């Protein structure tokens, strides 16, 4: 397997070890086959279906993307990109034309062999004009795609994008059998490690190991039973009473009690998930960067991490790039709570005090209203009067977010810098929730996207994080950890993925019974 990482600049300096890790499990613990993994998962809904275009919550991301289906590429637990259904890929120097070489001898669970047609038809689900896919913006840059041989496809992009292979690992972009997509979505026919036996949306899914799968160093369980448990207490109970082997989204408030149980272990990673307070930069008074900075200095980040996340998180620095990203600027100066600086920036804006409404609801994130009240208290010392408006959770994303000039919001983060920035920070995109436009930022975004030299890209992304921090319209006070728990009967690899919950939702692939 040759991924040619250096040439495309996807490999950070000194991360050569990542290549080794990407080729197999760590040699320390020898995984063994067998057993039925029982998962108790939050995030299941009665509206769930095997249609990747609609997936947005843990249950289906884990069961479809991580278990029953495959994508072209996969982000390893170490954050490095590797092939899943694609074996290798090549780009032209302008990063506009990408050729993917597909894995040979792969079959879908119904026996149909996997090939180029399946890729084209699966991607067409997202690129179609009237597609309602959540991944539509990601693939919008694809100008044309064509089959070269049965196991080779070529994509031509409207503009160069060095991250294109990364985008192909997105959990929406699953590979379905061409000509049978409707049936595959109804029954769950993919190429993944496990094949569907039973699926009752919002209740449970039962899958068994697909014997002919091409990965022989993964998927150690004979079967996986995922039970949808949306109530936090019921989930904890199920793990405590040994009804399930692992659960996601541990309730912070009762985590200490869970820890006391010697048969249970907590696993926690800091990823890209972050909570935000976007301000509309096209509206008074947030159109003045000084006002934005006054608010950024008026929030006590550490207090929020301690009281809202109960320590399960880290302070963030007003940009959306997280520790799970490649070019995360860890050395950037950290904005810290400082009422005097807040006052100073207010003076710069020609103000002595400031009155603003902050809309919040727990629909934005758990504890958002409390967080807004803490913000109100800390900002008061800096001469900023925040009026917390409690909004209804119903319809929050339609009526408050993007509409109210200052509100609470969350982002689960993205695997690449470009993806995150172009989703919510690029000028004019629909989810730019601050209506922020910064010429230098947008110029850097375009040039970094097409840049194949890793060092140069790193520099550009560092500068962009710095610009976002001082000029951007979003206050990003904290990263929220993914906190999951498992029974000690389970064994896990040394490195756990931090893109999503449950080992980047690949627990069924990477874990085994001790």
């Amino acid at each position, binding site marked *: 397997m040759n991924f040619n990482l250096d040439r495309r600049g996807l490999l950070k300096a000194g991360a050569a070890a990542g290549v080794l890790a990407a080729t197999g499990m760590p040699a320390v613990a020898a995984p063994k086959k067998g057993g039925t993994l029982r998962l108790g998962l939050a995030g299941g809904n*009665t509206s769930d279906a095997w249609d990747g275009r609609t997936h947005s919550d843990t249950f289906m991301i884990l069961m479809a993307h991580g278990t029953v289906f495959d994508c072209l590429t996969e982000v390893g637990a170490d954050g490095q990109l590797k092939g899943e259904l694609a074996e290798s890929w090549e780009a032209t120097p302008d990063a506009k034309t990408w050729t993917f070489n597909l894995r040979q001898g792969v079959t879908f669970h119904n026996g149909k062999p996997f090939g180029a047609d399946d890729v084209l038809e699966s991607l067409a689900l997202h690129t179609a004009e009237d597609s309602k896919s959540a991944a539509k913006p990601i693939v919008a840059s694809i100008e044309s795609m064509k089959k070269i041989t049965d196991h080779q496809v070529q994509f031509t992009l409207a503009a160069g994008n060095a991250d294109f292979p990364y985008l192909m690992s997105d959990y929406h972009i699953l590979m379905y059998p061409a000509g049978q997509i409707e049936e595959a979505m109804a029954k769950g026919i993919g190429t993944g490690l496990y094949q569907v036996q039973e699926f009752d949306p919002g209740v449970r899914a039962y899958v068994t190991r697909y014997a002919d799968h091409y990965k022989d160093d993964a998927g150690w369980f004979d079967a996986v039973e995922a039970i949808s448990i949306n*109530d936090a207490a019921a989930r904890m*109970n199920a793990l405590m009473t040994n009804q*399930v082997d692992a659960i996601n989204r541990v309730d912070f408030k009762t985590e200490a009690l869970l820890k006391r149980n010697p048969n249970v272990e907590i696993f926690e990673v800091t990823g890209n998930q972050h909570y935000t307070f976007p301000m509309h930069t096209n509206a008074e008074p947030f159109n003045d960067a000084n006002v934005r900075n006054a608010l950024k200095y008026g929030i006590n980040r550490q207090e929020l991490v301690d009281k809202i996340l109960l320590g399960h998180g880290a302070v963030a620095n007003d940009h959306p790039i997280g520790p799970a990203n490649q070019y995360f600027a860890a050395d950037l100066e950290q904005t810290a709570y400082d009422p005097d600086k807040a006052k100073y920036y207010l003076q710069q804006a020609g103000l002595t005090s400031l009155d603003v409404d902050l809309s919040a609801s727990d629909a934005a994130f758990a504890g958002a209203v409390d967080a807004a009240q803490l913000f109100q208290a800390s900002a008061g010392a800096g001469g900023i009067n925040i009026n917390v408006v409690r909004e209804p959770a119903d*319809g929050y*994303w339609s009526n408050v977010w993007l509409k109210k000039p200052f509100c609470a919001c969350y982002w689960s983060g993205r695997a690449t810098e470009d993806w995150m920035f172009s989703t919510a920070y690029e000028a004019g995109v629909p989810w730019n929730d601050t209506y922020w436009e910064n010429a230098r930022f947008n110029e850097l975004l375009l040039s970094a996207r097409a840049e194949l030299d890793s060092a140069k890209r790193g520099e550009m992304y560092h500068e962009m994080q710095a610009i976002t921090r001082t000029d951007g319209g979003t206050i990003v006070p904290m990263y929220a950890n993914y906190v999951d728990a498992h029974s000690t009967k389970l064994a896990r690899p040394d490195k756990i993925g931090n893109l999503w919950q449950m080992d980047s939702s690949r627990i069924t692939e990477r874990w085994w019974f001790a």
Partner: protein
Amino acid sequence: MSGFGADLFRLVLKRLGFGLLTLIVVSLIIFGAVELLPGDFAEEILGQGATPEAVAVIREELGLDQPVVTRYFSWLGGALTGDFGISFGNQRSVAEQLGPRFANTLFLALVAACISVPLAVGVGILAALYRNSIFDRLANITTLTSISSPEFFVAYILILFLAVMNPIFPSLSNVSSGLDFGTRLERTMLPALTLTLVVTAHMMRMTRAAIINLLASPYIEMARLKGVSPARVIVRHALPNALAPIINVIALNLAYLITGVVVVEVVFVYPGVGQLFVDSVKIRDIPIVQACCLIFAATYILLNLTADVLSILSNPRLRHPK
């Protein structure tokens, strides 16, 4: 007797007719109420990802861009011919989705009823027999305590004692279609016991009160004076005349066992109708919400009707009108 039978039949028919009318009114109210909630299915399902284009595409696909009145009547037309439509959420037919869930709910209600009704009536009779004794007080305190505690609290107490400290029953009601009866019963036990604790007090107190009320009647005194034992007085003479109020309370509680179990379902992750109903309201999946409401309303109507018919049958004065 034939006159009475015809009367009863006419009564049942009339009540069923009114029931149907009630159902239509209920469906109208629910439809209006869901309309009044902020956001529709397209916005709720897309959440943070609701771009105007995506919302428009989904609305058009599901016909949500039609006016409210048109949508209601096209739904009503389907429902009257037995077609409850397709769920917005996953494009499966409502009947197919609701069927197994409703079967689960009925099973749970049945198990809970099989435990709670004999228990409540039995304890009620005993409490009336030994009224004001230690047993009576104890029965009252226990049942009143359990009905006064929130359902989820009762559920957690049962989990603590019967699943954590003494692992007798599983804390998770993971029931699915392929299970044999024994396993299914075992997994349904904790929610059924919780419901039993919740509904017993009402039925037990009513049984006790209805019987005690009759014990002051002259004919009971007559029975006592002729030397009938206290137990026989109650079972033979008082109970048959106390049946009407008891049956009514039992019917009310049975209806509750079917329609009011959402909290218990959540705690034990029991895949019944309640959970589906709440999920569907959350995403404004109107076809499912309507079907659930109709089932709930029909449950009340049918159980009340049954209770009334049984009350009439248990009352000789009504059974043999002059």
